[in-house]
């Protein structure tokens, strides 16, 4: 182990910007970005499934509130949502004394909340579109088997909607990764935050921003690969059949 760190120190010696210290910042940034994006996507996905079902309901009083929610969160910039949740929340009197303060005091949780609500809104609309476009034949067949509405939802509509939503959802995941770059405006040391710090300390924009751009590229590749793999597995039945 000491061999490797000595080799690493050797590699980085002789330049000011890529030092073990700044590497430490980039590493912290990578961890923060990954945590933030991963958690917001998982929670957002869990929220989006019931919301999408509500949104495709024919009863107005069920679908309308969800529509208002997705409209608001898709209709305003994520940066504004983040500012409102981070800086706006402190104007509620007594928030500092309430049990919520440990959550809102840190920059991480307001950012997580903003990102989660935002991605949940987009994911809801993606799923709703997929549910809407379920082939009529599948629904009629399910009815002919005497399935109830909920059984049909569970066995027929949701599984096939999931598959159809997959490519669009993969895009949403990548958008979310890139959108997370704004987290540093609320003092979070994410990847972009680390780059901004190195930039302002050494007055060099190119090296730090190019470096984190490369890291974002690698992350994007990993996501693309994962979704390519999922699509291959889950959408195999749609491929042209060869004998």
């Amino acid at each position, binding site marked *: 182990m000491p061999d490797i760190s000595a080799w690493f120190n050797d590699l980085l010696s002789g330049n000011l910007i890529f030092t073990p210290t700044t590497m430490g910042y980039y590493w912290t940034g990578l961890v923060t970005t990954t945590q933030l994006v991963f958690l917001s996507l998982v929670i957002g996905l869990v929220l989006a499934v019931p919301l999408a079902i509500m949104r495709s309901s024919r009863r107005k009083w069920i679908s309308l509130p969800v529509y208002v929610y997705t409209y608001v969160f898709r209709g305003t910039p994520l940066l504004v949502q983040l500012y409102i949740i981070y*800086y706006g929340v*402190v104007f509620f009197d007594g928030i*500092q004394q309430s049990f919520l303060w440990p959550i809102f*005091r840190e*920059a991480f949780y307001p950012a997580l909340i903003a990102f989660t609500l935002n991605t949940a809104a987009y994911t809801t609309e993606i799923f709703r579109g997929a549910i809407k476009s379920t082939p009529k034949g599948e629904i009629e067949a399910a009815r002919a088997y005497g399935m109830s509405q909920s059984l049909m939802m569970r066995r027929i509509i949701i599984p096939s909607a999931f598959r159809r939503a997959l490519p669009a959802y993969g895009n949403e995941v990548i958008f979310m990764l890139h959108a997370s770059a704004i987290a540093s*405006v609320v*003092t979070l*040391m994410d990847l972009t*935050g680390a780059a*901004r*710090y190195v*930039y*302002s*300390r050494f*007055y*060099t*924009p190119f090296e730090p921003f190019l470096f984190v751009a490369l890291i974002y590229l690698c992350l994007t590749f990993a996501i693309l690969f994962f979704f390519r793999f999922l699509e291959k597995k889950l959408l195999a039945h749609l491929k042209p059949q060869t004998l």
Partner: protein
Amino acid sequence: MKKLLSVSLIGLAVAAASSAQARDYDHVRIGVDVPYVPMEYRTAEGDLTGFDIDLGNAMCEQIGVTCEWIEQEWDGIIPGLLSRNYDAVMSSMTINDERRQQVLFSDPYITMPSAWFAASDLDIDEANEETLEGLTIGVQRGTLQDNYVTDNYSSVADISRYSTADDMVLDMDAQRLDIVFLDFPIGQSTLVENDNGDYTIVGEQITQPKEYFGDGFGIAFRQRDEALAEKFNEALATLKEDGTYDEIFARYFGEE
């Protein structure tokens, strides 16, 4: 006619050649990070004002150039100078060796200590490794205070970095920050003399070590604009002699 033409052509060529070298400025664009009360800020009417602004304008008048103030966030202020978005930076910038490698500084025009500020009920008399342990410290990103705190206390405390001093004060009021470290007069006017909260200075004003706290505030120029820096130095000396400097100083910091 032909002769006249060729003479004027030569004249044009000479003019073009000389302007390709160090420029003779008659219009100087100055980068500034606003707000940083009382050094540079906007009045309720939206007018740019402050010690730097008044002194800068007086210097420009003395030199006989027109000046234009261009707003730029702090963390990009030196790169902005180097990429020619403006020709000088006059924005409470401390002269230190790290920055000297990038830019050319004028003579210092004011010296300004740094200081710690915290809510009065934070029970510490002095900021050191023990008292700061576990606290959240606020600094403005890329300032010398940021460098000092990062190098000395990042192992014991959390550091939150802000783009503007305003955001930092907002989070101080929100009680997200326990303590902040900034230029003394800025902390004095935005925190202590402000009635949003009950803040106080912690410990003494800090001017050492020189490695961080440098030699006072200077105007930054691109390395090759030596002639321009020289003009500003001369103007500063004149303004100090004729009393204009003292008058501007008294306007923002009172009599000393």
